């Protein structure tokens, strides 16, 4: 079996392969980011390892610590036909580059009356639970989802990461692709080399009849664990993996909830004013009279991400929280 392709790959590897594929397919794909070239180790999490060796440091550029300049260079090159993929090392660092992303990347197509477009991808990673503390773990996707003109994407497994990141790079709109640091090195089934996951389409990785768990990113794994447990009690959970957070696939979500008549939205981000609120609202707006109970929400607590493991755990969204919410909804 030695020349068979690997059956399983890691999440980080999937992202790497997606970029390699995009670079091979289109020489307008370039990468920018701190430490991303191989001389500097191929990225702090090695997600870009090998790419500068293969495609050269003209196309794979380690940058200064200058996030505004990084995103700006991506915006500018995207305006004239490049497909830059800019790495913002950790999602919290996007706070220094929001202007470029929000006032420029997201708006230039519109403000130019469609004369220009900004087909860039921002890759960034984040996630709590590993003791990185208040400034290295935030999930800020709700901000980005609120910005017209930006697409926001998060994968829950390596195969999807491969297919979604490739689609993000090839998409003609600015996309923020959110990776999850704590699960970078977890494995999943390897995708076929030509695997593509379209943006804007949710998946239904588990079908069920009693309740819909609508989630994305790391929430998917946690939801699976809870669904598995509850199945033993005869509670049948359907899982919707949004994959694209904004604009999200309302059709798949509403179809599922129309069937199950109950839903819980699950995410790692702080619950208050999080993306779950929009999804919950949309479901209520469309399916109010069909629902057995109000849509539940699970997210992390109203606090900065705490450092100490005990507090971090108590603060963070968890399988227990999901289970409790499902039971509450199903009464």
């Amino acid at each position, binding site marked *: 079996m030695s020349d068979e392709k690997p059956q399983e790959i890691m999440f980080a590897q999937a992202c790497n392969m997606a970029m390699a594929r995009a670079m091979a397919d289109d020489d307008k794909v370039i990468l920018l980011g701190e430490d991303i070239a191989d001389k500097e180790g191929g990225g702090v999490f090695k997600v870009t390892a090998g790419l500068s060796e293969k495609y050269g440091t003209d196309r794979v550029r380690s940058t200064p610590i200058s996030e505004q300049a990084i995103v700006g260079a991506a915006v500018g090159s995207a305006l004239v036909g490049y497909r830059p993929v800019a790495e913002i090392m950790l999602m919290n660092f996007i706070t220094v580059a929001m202007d470029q992303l929000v006032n420029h990347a997201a708006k230039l197509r519109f*403000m130019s009356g469609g004369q220009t477009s900004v087909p860039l991808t921002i890759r960034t990673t984040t996630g709590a639970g590993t003791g990185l503390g208040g400034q290295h773990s935030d999930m800020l996707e709700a901000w980005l989802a609120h910005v017209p003109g930006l697409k926001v994407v998060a994968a829950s497994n390596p195969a999807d990461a491969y297919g979604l990141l490739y689609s993000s790079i090839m998409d003609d709109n600015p996309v923020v692709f959110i990776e999850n640091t704590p699960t970078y090195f977890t494995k999943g089934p390897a995708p076929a080399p030509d695997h593509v996951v379209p943006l804007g389409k949710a998946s239904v990785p588990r079908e069920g009849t009693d309740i819909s768990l609508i989630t994305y990113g790391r929430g998917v794994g946690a939801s699976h664990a809870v669904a598995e447990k509850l199945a033993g009690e005869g509670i049948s959970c359907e899982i919707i993996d949004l994959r694209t957070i904004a604009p999200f696939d309302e059709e798949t979500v509403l179809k599922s909830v129309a069937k199950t008549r109950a839903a819980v939205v699950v995410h790692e981000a702080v619950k208050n004013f999080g993306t779950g609120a929009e999804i919950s609202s949309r479901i209520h707006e469309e399916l109010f009279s069909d629902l057995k109970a109000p849509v539940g929400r699970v997210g992390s607590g109203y606090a900065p991400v705490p450092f100490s493991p005990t507090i971090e755990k108590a603060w963070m969204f968890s399988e227990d929280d999901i289970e409790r919410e499902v039971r509450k909804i199903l009464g």
Partner: protein
Amino acid sequence: MSNTQMADKDVLLDIFTRADLIMQSDRRFRKMIGAGQLQIVYYPVRGQEVVSAAMMAAINQDDYLVTIYRGLHDQLAKGIPSKDLWAEFAGKVTGTCKGKGGPMHITHPETGVMVTTGIVGSGIPIANGLGLASQLEKDNKVTVCCFGDGASNIGAFHEGLNMAQIWKLPVIFLCQNNHYGEHTHMRDTTGSKTIAQRGEGLGMRSVRVNGNDASEMYAAAKEAVDHARAGNGPTLIEAMTFRFHGHLLGDTSHYIPKEEMEQAREDDPMPILRQQLLDLQVSEADIAAIEAKNTATIDEAAQFALDSDYPPGDEYRIDVLDVEIAA
């Protein structure tokens, strides 16, 4: 400031033609807004004509430009047809951006005008991206990035200039130093004596010139362009100039001391440039012909803007993403 040689007559004529179009356009905008024919926020450019005209005379139509809310002079000098530009300023569907961008957000790729931004300093990092594309593409284009003295206090200036410098990007950073950021004088906001000094601190080739002198400005622009096209990287040009009509129309310039304003009026680049042409034996009639042609252009453009329709309301669902947004 250097003692540059006088530029060639045809170069000066070219600069004058652009600068006069700017001066007349600015005057007309102020007049029409004052008369209530246009209801827009307008950032006057009177006084800064020559900086822009000389810079754009030194580059080609397909070179890139990134500019700011106070951008009319740059946009006209770069060659955006007046009709398209006026219509956009007026918010009409016939404008460069279908009325969606407005004066602060002019884009016109046909003439290389890629971005006009209303966020101070933000064009600088974007200009690098255009320069990076040219560098990778080996298309021999340069990017001119315009901004003000006040913009040199913001982080994006620092990050952008540094990145351009280490990557030797073909970008010309044109700081149009009119001494004021809104109502605040540069001396109250800027720890360095000059902006050029900041460029030097970043290791960049940096020059400070009298932007109101067409020949000096043109020479500096040309040198920077040649330097960039030769692959030697960016230049920061600090072009000293002045704006005569305040930050935005309606601003009374109460914060500008009388003597300073008087001095600035004496240094007004437009009469100086006109006199230089006369001194070079360009006839009054030839100059008047240029001026008349510009007037006609503006007459036509202004009328076109007034006559054009506003875009339909639900145009807001188009160009947000590459697909139309459902109603």
